[in-house]
Protein backbone atom coordinates (compact mmCIF):
# COMPACT_ATOMS: atom_id res chain seq x y z
CA UNK A 1 0.00 0.00 0.00
CA UNK A 2 2.75 2.40 0.94
CA UNK A 3 4.40 1.96 -2.45
CA UNK A 4 1.14 2.60 -4.30
CA UNK A 5 0.74 5.77 -2.29
CA UNK A 6 4.14 7.22 -3.19
CA UNK A 7 3.74 6.29 -6.84
CA UNK A 8 0.31 7.84 -7.19
CA UNK A 9 1.12 10.95 -5.18
CA UNK A 10 2.69 12.96 -8.05
CA UNK A 11 -0.13 11.87 -10.39
CA UNK A 12 -1.98 15.06 -9.60
CA UNK A 13 0.76 17.22 -11.09
CA UNK A 14 1.35 15.47 -14.42
CA UNK A 15 -0.39 12.89 -16.57
CA UNK A 16 2.37 10.85 -18.20
CA UNK A 17 5.14 11.75 -15.75
CA UNK A 18 4.46 9.48 -12.78
CA UNK A 19 4.38 6.16 -14.61
CA UNK A 20 7.64 6.93 -16.35
CA UNK A 21 9.18 8.07 -13.08
CA UNK A 22 7.96 4.93 -11.36
CA UNK A 23 9.40 2.73 -14.12
CA UNK A 24 12.67 4.54 -13.90
CA UNK A 25 12.95 4.22 -10.12
CA UNK A 26 12.09 0.50 -10.22
CA UNK A 27 14.71 0.01 -12.90
CA UNK A 28 17.38 1.96 -11.04
CA UNK A 29 16.69 -0.13 -7.97
CA UNK A 30 16.90 -3.43 -9.83
CA UNK A 31 19.68 -2.47 -12.25
CA UNK A 32 22.66 -3.57 -10.09
CA UNK A 33 21.10 -6.99 -9.43
CA UNK A 34 20.15 -7.53 -13.08
CA UNK A 35 23.61 -6.52 -14.31
CA UNK A 36 25.31 -8.70 -11.73
CA UNK A 37 23.30 -11.75 -12.83
CA UNK A 38 24.26 -11.55 -16.53
CA UNK A 39 27.57 -13.38 -16.32
CA UNK A 40 26.41 -16.15 -13.93
CA UNK A 41 23.38 -16.77 -16.18
CA UNK A 42 25.55 -17.03 -19.31
CA UNK A 43 27.80 -19.49 -17.47
CA UNK A 44 24.78 -21.48 -16.31
CA UNK A 45 23.41 -21.70 -19.86
CA UNK A 46 26.83 -22.75 -21.13
CA UNK A 47 27.08 -25.36 -18.39
CA UNK A 48 23.59 -26.67 -19.21
CA UNK A 49 24.38 -26.91 -22.93
CA UNK A 50 27.78 -28.49 -22.33
CA UNK A 51 26.36 -31.22 -20.11
CA UNK A 52 23.19 -32.00 -22.10
CA UNK A 53 25.17 -32.06 -25.35
CA UNK A 54 27.57 -34.45 -23.57
CA UNK A 55 30.70 -32.38 -24.30
CA UNK A 56 31.81 -33.80 -21.02
CA UNK A 57 30.56 -36.80 -19.08
CA UNK A 58 32.38 -36.06 -15.88
CA UNK A 59 30.42 -32.97 -14.86
CA UNK A 60 26.80 -33.29 -13.69
CA UNK A 61 24.08 -30.99 -15.08
CA UNK A 62 23.11 -27.79 -13.23
CA UNK A 63 19.81 -29.43 -12.38
CA UNK A 64 21.52 -32.42 -10.78
CA UNK A 65 23.79 -30.13 -8.79
CA UNK A 66 20.83 -28.00 -7.73
CA UNK A 67 18.99 -31.07 -6.55
CA UNK A 68 22.04 -32.26 -4.71
CA UNK A 69 22.46 -28.87 -3.10
CA UNK A 70 18.96 -29.09 -1.67
CA UNK A 71 19.70 -32.56 -0.35
CA UNK A 72 23.03 -31.30 1.05
CA UNK A 73 21.20 -28.46 2.79
CA UNK A 74 18.01 -30.08 4.09
CA UNK A 75 18.12 -33.75 3.04
CA UNK A 76 15.14 -35.82 1.96
CA UNK A 77 16.29 -36.67 -1.61
CA UNK A 78 19.26 -39.02 -1.56
CA UNK A 79 19.65 -39.52 2.17
CA UNK A 80 23.34 -40.42 1.98
CA UNK A 81 26.18 -39.56 4.31
CA UNK A 82 26.17 -35.91 3.19
CA UNK A 83 22.43 -35.25 3.30
CA UNK A 84 21.43 -32.32 5.50
CA UNK A 85 25.02 -31.77 6.65
CA UNK A 86 25.61 -28.35 5.03
CA UNK A 87 25.11 -26.42 8.27
CA UNK A 88 27.55 -28.61 10.16
CA UNK A 89 30.25 -28.23 7.51
CA UNK A 90 29.61 -24.54 7.01
CA UNK A 91 29.82 -23.85 10.74
CA UNK A 92 33.02 -25.91 11.02
CA UNK A 93 34.60 -23.93 8.18
CA UNK A 94 33.36 -20.61 9.52
CA UNK A 95 34.88 -21.28 12.92
CA UNK A 96 38.25 -21.93 11.23
CA UNK A 97 37.97 -18.95 8.89
CA UNK A 98 37.04 -16.45 11.61
CA UNK A 99 39.22 -18.07 14.25
CA UNK A 100 42.26 -18.16 11.96
CA UNK A 101 41.52 -14.64 10.79
CA UNK A 102 41.22 -13.33 14.37
CA UNK A 103 44.50 -15.02 15.26
CA UNK A 104 46.17 -13.49 12.19
CA UNK A 105 44.87 -10.03 13.13
CA UNK A 106 46.11 -10.52 16.68
CA UNK A 107 49.66 -11.06 15.38
CA UNK A 108 49.68 -8.90 12.27
CA UNK A 109 48.32 -5.67 13.78
CA UNK A 110 50.89 -5.17 16.56
CA UNK A 111 53.77 -6.48 14.41
CA UNK A 112 52.70 -4.19 11.56
CA UNK A 113 52.50 -1.18 13.85
CA UNK A 114 55.90 -2.03 15.27
CA UNK A 115 57.53 -2.44 11.85
CA UNK A 116 55.86 0.70 10.57
CA UNK A 117 56.83 2.98 13.46
CA UNK A 118 60.02 1.55 15.00
CA UNK A 119 63.05 1.51 12.67
CA UNK A 120 64.89 -1.14 14.71
CA UNK A 121 61.88 -3.45 14.63
CA UNK A 122 61.69 -2.92 10.88
CA UNK A 123 65.35 -3.88 10.44
CA UNK A 124 64.96 -6.99 12.58
CA UNK A 125 61.61 -8.31 11.34
CA UNK A 126 61.06 -7.01 7.84
CA UNK A 127 63.72 -9.02 5.93
CA UNK A 128 62.66 -12.27 7.59
CA UNK A 129 58.97 -11.70 6.91
CA UNK A 130 59.62 -10.65 3.32
CA UNK A 131 61.47 -13.91 2.65
CA UNK A 132 58.68 -15.97 4.22
CA UNK A 133 55.99 -14.11 2.30
CA UNK A 134 56.32 -15.72 -1.17
CA UNK A 135 55.98 -19.23 0.28
CA UNK A 136 52.40 -20.29 -0.51
CA UNK A 137 50.11 -21.74 2.11
CA UNK A 138 50.00 -25.02 0.15
CA UNK A 139 53.74 -25.41 0.65
CA UNK A 140 53.28 -25.12 4.38
CA UNK A 141 50.76 -27.96 4.46
CA UNK A 142 53.20 -30.85 5.24
CA UNK A 143 55.16 -28.89 7.83
CA UNK A 144 52.00 -27.65 9.43
CA UNK A 145 50.75 -31.22 9.84
CA UNK A 146 54.06 -32.22 11.43
CA UNK A 147 54.07 -29.21 13.76
CA UNK A 148 50.38 -29.08 14.69
CA UNK A 149 49.28 -32.63 13.99
CA UNK A 150 46.46 -33.88 11.80
CA UNK A 151 43.25 -31.98 12.31
CA UNK A 152 41.77 -28.69 13.36
CA UNK A 153 44.88 -27.05 14.81
CA UNK A 154 46.70 -27.40 11.51
CA UNK A 155 43.72 -26.00 9.62
CA UNK A 156 43.65 -23.06 12.00
CA UNK A 157 47.34 -22.37 11.52
CA UNK A 158 47.13 -22.46 7.72
CA UNK A 159 44.14 -20.13 7.56
CA UNK A 160 45.91 -17.82 9.98
CA UNK A 161 48.99 -17.78 7.76
CA UNK A 162 46.89 -17.02 4.70
CA UNK A 163 45.25 -14.01 6.36
CA UNK A 164 48.44 -12.74 8.01
CA UNK A 165 50.28 -10.95 5.20
CA UNK A 166 47.58 -8.70 3.77
CA UNK A 167 46.82 -7.45 7.29
CA UNK A 168 50.51 -6.99 8.06
CA UNK A 169 51.43 -5.17 4.86
CA UNK A 170 48.45 -2.82 4.94
CA UNK A 171 49.03 -2.02 8.60
CA UNK A 172 52.68 -1.17 7.90
CA UNK A 173 51.64 0.99 4.96
CA UNK A 174 48.91 2.70 6.99
CA UNK A 175 51.02 3.69 9.97
CA UNK A 176 53.92 4.80 7.79
CA UNK A 177 52.03 6.99 5.38
CA UNK A 178 50.55 9.49 7.80
CA UNK A 179 50.65 13.02 6.39
CA UNK A 180 53.55 14.73 8.27
CA UNK A 181 51.49 17.94 8.42
CA UNK A 182 49.08 16.17 10.76
CA UNK A 183 51.86 15.59 13.29
CA UNK A 184 52.76 19.27 13.11
CA UNK A 185 49.11 20.24 13.50
CA UNK A 186 48.74 17.93 16.50
CA UNK A 187 51.87 19.18 18.23
CA UNK A 188 51.00 22.84 17.78
CA UNK A 189 47.60 22.03 19.32
CA UNK A 190 49.28 20.57 22.39
CA UNK A 191 49.18 16.87 21.54
CA UNK A 192 52.71 15.53 21.79
CA UNK A 193 54.72 12.33 22.19
CA UNK A 194 52.86 9.10 22.78
CA UNK A 195 49.46 10.80 22.65
CA UNK A 196 50.11 11.39 18.95
CA UNK A 197 50.15 7.65 18.40
CA UNK A 198 46.56 7.27 19.60
CA UNK A 199 45.25 10.58 18.33
CA UNK A 200 46.98 10.77 14.94
CA UNK A 201 48.75 7.57 13.81
CA UNK A 202 46.01 5.06 14.62
CA UNK A 203 43.04 7.00 13.23
CA UNK A 204 45.00 8.01 10.12
CA UNK A 205 45.92 4.36 9.53
CA UNK A 206 42.40 2.93 9.96
CA UNK A 207 41.47 2.98 6.25
CA UNK A 208 44.58 0.96 5.35
CA UNK A 209 44.20 -1.34 8.32
CA UNK A 210 40.60 -1.90 7.36
CA UNK A 211 41.59 -2.74 3.78
CA UNK A 212 44.11 -5.22 5.19
CA UNK A 213 41.49 -6.86 7.39
CA UNK A 214 39.07 -7.12 4.48
CA UNK A 215 41.69 -8.71 2.22
CA UNK A 216 42.81 -10.95 5.06
CA UNK A 217 39.31 -12.26 5.67
CA UNK A 218 38.89 -12.85 1.93
CA UNK A 219 42.12 -14.84 1.88
CA UNK A 220 41.04 -16.82 4.93
CA UNK A 221 38.07 -18.06 2.88
CA UNK A 222 40.38 -18.53 -0.08
CA UNK A 223 42.71 -20.91 1.75
CA UNK A 224 40.05 -22.81 3.73
CA UNK A 225 40.18 -25.81 1.38
CA UNK A 226 43.94 -26.14 1.80
CA UNK A 227 43.51 -25.66 5.54
CA UNK A 228 40.99 -28.50 5.63
CA UNK A 229 43.25 -30.85 3.65
CA UNK A 230 44.82 -31.61 7.01
CA UNK A 231 42.50 -34.51 7.74
CA UNK A 232 39.68 -32.74 9.54
CA UNK A 233 36.41 -34.68 9.39
CA UNK A 234 34.13 -31.66 8.95
CA UNK A 235 34.24 -28.47 6.91
CA UNK A 236 33.55 -27.42 3.34
CA UNK A 237 37.15 -28.08 2.38
CA UNK A 238 36.87 -31.59 3.81
CA UNK A 239 33.68 -32.14 1.81
CA UNK A 240 35.43 -31.07 -1.38
CA UNK A 241 38.38 -33.36 -0.67
CA UNK A 242 35.96 -36.25 0.01
CA UNK A 243 34.12 -35.47 -3.21
CA UNK A 244 37.39 -35.69 -5.08
CA UNK A 245 38.39 -39.08 -3.63
CA UNK A 246 34.87 -40.47 -4.11
CA UNK A 247 34.65 -39.00 -7.65
CA UNK A 248 31.47 -37.24 -6.65
CA UNK A 249 31.76 -34.06 -8.69
CA UNK A 250 28.35 -32.73 -7.59
CA UNK A 251 29.63 -32.71 -4.02
CA UNK A 252 32.72 -30.79 -5.08
CA UNK A 253 30.65 -28.20 -6.97
CA UNK A 254 28.23 -27.79 -4.06
CA UNK A 255 31.15 -27.16 -1.71
CA UNK A 256 32.60 -24.60 -4.12
CA UNK A 257 29.32 -22.73 -4.43
CA UNK A 258 28.81 -22.60 -0.66
CA UNK A 259 32.36 -21.28 -0.10
CA UNK A 260 31.83 -18.63 -2.77
CA UNK A 261 28.53 -17.46 -1.33
CA UNK A 262 29.69 -17.55 2.30
CA UNK A 263 32.85 -15.60 1.44
CA UNK A 264 30.79 -13.08 -0.52
CA UNK A 265 28.25 -12.49 2.26
CA UNK A 266 31.04 -12.24 4.81
CA UNK A 267 32.76 -9.60 2.65
CA UNK A 268 29.56 -7.57 2.18
CA UNK A 269 29.08 -7.43 5.95
CA UNK A 270 32.66 -6.22 6.39
CA UNK A 271 32.23 -3.61 3.65
CA UNK A 272 29.01 -2.33 5.23
CA UNK A 273 30.80 -2.08 8.56
CA UNK A 274 33.69 -0.22 6.90
CA UNK A 275 31.36 2.22 5.17
CA UNK A 276 29.91 3.09 8.52
CA UNK A 277 33.15 3.27 10.52
CA UNK A 278 35.07 5.08 7.79
CA UNK A 279 32.31 7.46 6.77
CA UNK A 280 34.80 10.30 7.30
CA UNK A 281 37.03 9.00 4.55
CA UNK A 282 36.18 10.32 1.06
CA UNK A 283 37.75 7.40 -0.81
CA UNK A 284 36.42 4.54 1.25
CA UNK A 285 33.06 3.54 -0.07
CA UNK A 286 33.18 -0.04 -1.36
Amino acid at each position, binding site marked *: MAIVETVSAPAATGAAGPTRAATRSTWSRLKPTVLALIVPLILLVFWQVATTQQWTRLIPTPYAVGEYMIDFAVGGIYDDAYSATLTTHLLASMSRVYGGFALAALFALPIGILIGRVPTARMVLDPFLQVMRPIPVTAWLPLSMILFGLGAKSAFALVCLGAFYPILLNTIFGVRSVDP*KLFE*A*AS*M*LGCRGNAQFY*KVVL*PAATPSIFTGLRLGLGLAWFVIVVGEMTGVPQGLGAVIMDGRTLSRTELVICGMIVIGLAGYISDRVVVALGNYLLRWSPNHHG
Partner: protein
Amino acid sequence: MAESATPIVEIKGVSKVFQLQDQTIHALSGANLSINKGEFICLIGASGCGKSTLLRIMAGFDQPSSGEALMWGKPIAGPDPSRGMVFQDYALFPWLSVRANIGFGPASRGLGAAEVKQIVDKFIDLVGLSKFANAYPHQLSGGMKQRVAIARVLANDAELVLMDEPFGALDAMTRERLQDELLDIWERTRLTVVFVTHAVEEAILLANRVVVMTPGPGRIESDNLL
Protein backbone atom coordinates in the same frame (compact mmCIF):
# COMPACT_ATOMS: atom_id res chain seq x y z
CA MET B 1 60.06 51.92 15.91
CA ALA B 2 58.37 52.08 19.29
CA GLU B 3 60.52 50.47 21.97
CA SER B 4 57.91 50.82 24.67
CA ALA B 5 56.99 47.16 25.30
CA THR B 6 58.72 43.79 24.86
CA PRO B 7 57.92 42.42 21.44
CA ILE B 8 55.90 39.19 21.35
CA VAL B 9 58.32 37.70 18.81
CA GLU B 10 61.87 38.63 17.97
CA ILE B 11 63.84 37.20 15.08
CA LYS B 12 67.50 38.04 15.55
CA GLY B 13 69.94 37.35 12.72
CA VAL B 14 68.20 34.12 11.83
CA SER B 15 69.73 32.01 9.06
CA LYS B 16 68.46 28.71 7.79
CA VAL B 17 70.48 26.36 5.61
CA PHE B 18 69.06 23.28 3.95
CA GLN B 19 71.24 20.48 2.63
CA LEU B 20 69.70 19.09 -0.54
CA GLN B 21 71.84 16.24 -1.88
CA ASP B 22 75.11 18.04 -2.76
CA GLN B 23 73.50 21.49 -2.79
CA THR B 24 73.48 23.91 0.11
CA ILE B 25 70.40 26.12 0.08
CA HIS B 26 70.41 29.34 2.06
CA ALA B 27 66.70 29.79 2.70
CA LEU B 28 67.24 32.62 5.19
CA SER B 29 70.32 34.65 5.93
CA GLY B 30 70.45 37.09 8.80
CA ALA B 31 66.75 37.88 8.97
CA ASN B 32 65.70 40.36 11.65
CA LEU B 33 62.14 41.07 12.63
CA SER B 34 60.45 42.23 15.76
CA ILE B 35 56.71 41.79 16.19
CA ASN B 36 54.63 43.68 18.71
CA LYS B 37 51.53 42.31 20.36
CA GLY B 38 48.37 43.00 18.42
CA GLU B 39 50.05 43.65 15.08
CA PHE B 40 48.73 42.25 11.82
CA ILE B 41 51.85 41.68 9.77
CA CYS B 42 51.83 40.62 6.15
CA LEU B 43 54.96 38.96 4.90
CA ILE B 44 55.39 39.27 1.17
CA GLY B 45 58.15 38.37 -1.26
CA ALA B 46 58.94 36.34 -4.33
CA SER B 47 58.46 32.59 -4.36
CA GLY B 48 61.32 30.76 -2.68
CA CYS B 49 62.54 33.74 -0.66
CA GLY B 50 62.04 31.94 2.64
CA LYS B 51 58.63 33.13 3.89
CA SER B 52 57.40 29.67 4.80
CA THR B 53 60.75 28.87 6.37
CA LEU B 54 60.57 31.95 8.59
CA LEU B 55 57.00 31.11 9.58
CA ARG B 56 57.91 27.52 10.41
CA ILE B 57 60.73 28.76 12.63
CA MET B 58 58.31 31.07 14.43
CA ALA B 59 55.92 28.14 14.88
CA GLY B 60 58.74 26.01 16.29
CA PHE B 61 58.50 23.33 13.59
CA ASP B 62 62.08 24.12 12.47
CA GLN B 63 65.07 25.48 14.33
CA PRO B 64 67.27 28.26 12.92
CA SER B 65 70.74 27.21 11.70
CA SER B 66 72.07 30.32 13.39
CA GLY B 67 70.60 33.33 15.14
CA GLU B 68 67.74 33.41 17.59
CA ALA B 69 63.96 33.19 17.46
CA LEU B 70 62.37 34.40 20.67
CA MET B 71 58.84 34.63 22.01
CA TRP B 72 58.39 36.92 24.99
CA GLY B 73 62.20 36.88 25.22
CA LYS B 74 62.49 33.09 25.46
CA PRO B 75 63.86 30.87 22.67
CA ILE B 76 61.20 29.07 20.63
CA ALA B 77 62.07 25.43 21.28
CA GLY B 78 59.21 23.64 19.61
CA PRO B 79 55.55 23.85 18.63
CA ASP B 80 53.29 25.25 21.31
CA PRO B 81 49.57 25.98 21.65
CA SER B 82 50.36 29.67 22.11
CA ARG B 83 51.46 29.81 18.46
CA GLY B 84 48.90 28.46 16.04
CA MET B 85 49.62 27.76 12.40
CA VAL B 86 47.00 27.89 9.68
CA PHE B 87 48.31 25.82 6.80
CA GLN B 88 47.64 26.53 3.15
CA ASP B 89 46.27 23.00 2.69
CA TYR B 90 44.29 23.11 5.97
CA ALA B 91 45.84 19.99 7.59
CA LEU B 92 42.55 19.19 9.34
CA PHE B 93 42.14 15.74 10.87
CA PRO B 94 39.96 14.02 8.27
CA TRP B 95 38.57 11.49 10.74
CA LEU B 96 37.24 14.15 13.10
CA SER B 97 34.07 16.17 12.62
CA VAL B 98 34.26 19.97 12.44
CA ARG B 99 33.34 20.05 16.12
CA ALA B 100 36.02 17.54 17.12
CA ASN B 101 38.67 19.27 14.97
CA ILE B 102 38.04 22.55 16.76
CA GLY B 103 37.93 20.77 20.11
CA PHE B 104 41.15 18.84 19.47
CA GLY B 105 43.43 21.44 21.09
CA PRO B 106 41.33 22.09 24.21
CA ALA B 107 40.82 18.33 24.68
CA SER B 108 44.55 17.69 24.28
CA ARG B 109 45.25 20.26 26.95
CA GLY B 110 43.17 18.17 29.32
CA LEU B 111 40.06 20.35 29.64
CA GLY B 112 36.83 18.62 30.67
CA ALA B 113 34.14 17.71 28.14
CA ALA B 114 31.78 20.49 29.24
CA GLU B 115 34.49 23.11 28.98
CA VAL B 116 35.60 21.84 25.58
CA LYS B 117 32.00 21.97 24.35
CA GLN B 118 31.62 25.54 25.52
CA ILE B 119 34.81 26.62 23.74
CA VAL B 120 33.90 24.75 20.56
CA ASP B 121 30.41 26.28 20.49
CA LYS B 122 31.89 29.75 20.78
CA PHE B 123 34.43 29.39 17.99
CA ILE B 124 32.25 27.36 15.65
CA ASP B 125 29.82 30.25 15.89
CA LEU B 126 32.57 32.83 15.40
CA VAL B 127 33.49 31.32 12.04
CA GLY B 128 29.83 30.73 11.10
CA LEU B 129 29.92 26.94 10.83
CA SER B 130 27.31 25.98 13.42
CA LYS B 131 25.23 24.21 10.77
CA PHE B 132 28.19 22.06 9.79
CA ALA B 133 29.29 21.11 13.30
CA ASN B 134 28.97 17.39 12.62
CA ALA B 135 30.25 17.35 9.04
CA TYR B 136 33.58 15.78 8.19
CA PRO B 137 36.32 17.81 6.45
CA HIS B 138 35.80 16.11 3.08
CA GLN B 139 32.22 17.32 3.08
CA LEU B 140 33.28 20.98 3.31
CA SER B 141 34.35 23.50 0.68
CA GLY B 142 37.88 24.90 0.73
CA GLY B 143 36.73 28.14 2.38
CA MET B 144 34.86 26.24 5.06
CA LYS B 145 37.87 24.03 5.76
CA GLN B 146 40.03 27.11 6.17
CA ARG B 147 37.49 28.53 8.63
CA VAL B 148 37.75 25.34 10.67
CA ALA B 149 41.54 25.63 10.61
CA ILE B 150 41.30 29.22 11.88
CA ALA B 151 38.76 28.29 14.57
CA ARG B 152 41.00 25.41 15.61
CA VAL B 153 43.93 27.66 16.49
CA LEU B 154 41.73 30.34 18.05
CA ALA B 155 39.97 27.74 20.22
CA ASN B 156 43.37 26.72 21.50
CA ASP B 157 44.06 30.18 22.91
CA ALA B 158 46.80 31.00 20.43
CA GLU B 159 48.24 34.47 21.03
CA LEU B 160 50.10 34.43 17.77
CA VAL B 161 48.44 33.14 14.62
CA LEU B 162 50.74 32.22 11.78
CA MET B 163 49.09 31.91 8.39
CA ASP B 164 50.93 30.60 5.34
CA GLU B 165 49.06 31.70 2.22
CA PRO B 166 45.84 30.52 3.86
CA PHE B 167 43.57 31.84 1.12
CA GLY B 168 45.81 30.95 -1.80
CA ALA B 169 43.70 28.02 -2.96
CA LEU B 170 40.37 29.83 -2.75
CA ASP B 171 38.37 31.63 -5.41
CA ALA B 172 38.29 35.44 -5.37
CA MET B 173 34.86 35.79 -3.79
CA THR B 174 35.47 33.33 -0.99
CA ARG B 175 38.85 34.91 -0.39
CA GLU B 176 37.30 38.38 0.03
CA ARG B 177 34.72 37.04 2.45
CA LEU B 178 37.35 35.30 4.54
CA GLN B 179 39.60 38.37 4.50
CA ASP B 180 36.73 40.43 5.92
CA GLU B 181 35.97 37.80 8.52
CA LEU B 182 39.62 37.52 9.51
CA LEU B 183 39.92 41.30 9.96
CA ASP B 184 36.73 41.25 11.97
CA ILE B 185 38.08 38.50 14.25
CA TRP B 186 41.40 40.31 14.58
CA GLU B 187 39.71 43.55 15.57
CA ARG B 188 37.57 41.80 18.14
CA THR B 189 40.25 39.58 19.68
CA ARG B 190 43.39 41.70 19.20
CA LEU B 191 45.44 38.71 18.26
CA THR B 192 48.85 39.00 16.74
CA VAL B 193 48.82 37.74 13.16
CA VAL B 194 51.64 36.97 10.75
CA PHE B 195 50.16 36.40 7.34
CA VAL B 196 52.21 35.22 4.36
CA THR B 197 50.93 36.12 0.93
CA HIS B 198 52.03 36.57 -2.66
CA ALA B 199 49.41 39.18 -3.34
CA VAL B 200 50.34 42.80 -2.67
CA GLU B 201 46.65 43.87 -2.66
CA GLU B 202 45.87 41.29 -0.02
CA ALA B 203 48.79 42.50 2.09
CA ILE B 204 47.69 46.12 1.86
CA LEU B 205 44.08 45.28 2.63
CA LEU B 206 44.82 43.17 5.69
CA ALA B 207 48.01 44.36 7.30
CA ASN B 208 48.87 47.24 9.52
CA ARG B 209 52.47 46.45 8.76
CA VAL B 210 53.89 44.96 5.57
CA VAL B 211 57.25 43.21 5.64
CA VAL B 212 58.94 42.60 2.29
CA MET B 213 61.52 39.85 1.93
CA THR B 214 64.21 39.78 -0.75
CA PRO B 215 64.56 36.83 -3.07
CA GLY B 216 67.55 34.54 -2.97
CA PRO B 217 68.88 34.20 0.52
CA GLY B 218 65.94 35.42 2.58
CA ARG B 219 66.41 38.77 4.18
CA ILE B 220 64.02 41.47 5.32
CA GLU B 221 64.16 44.16 2.64
CA SER B 222 61.70 46.70 3.88
CA ASP B 223 59.33 47.10 6.74
CA ASN B 224 56.42 49.49 6.34
CA LEU B 225 53.90 50.56 8.89
CA LEU B 226 50.61 51.31 7.15
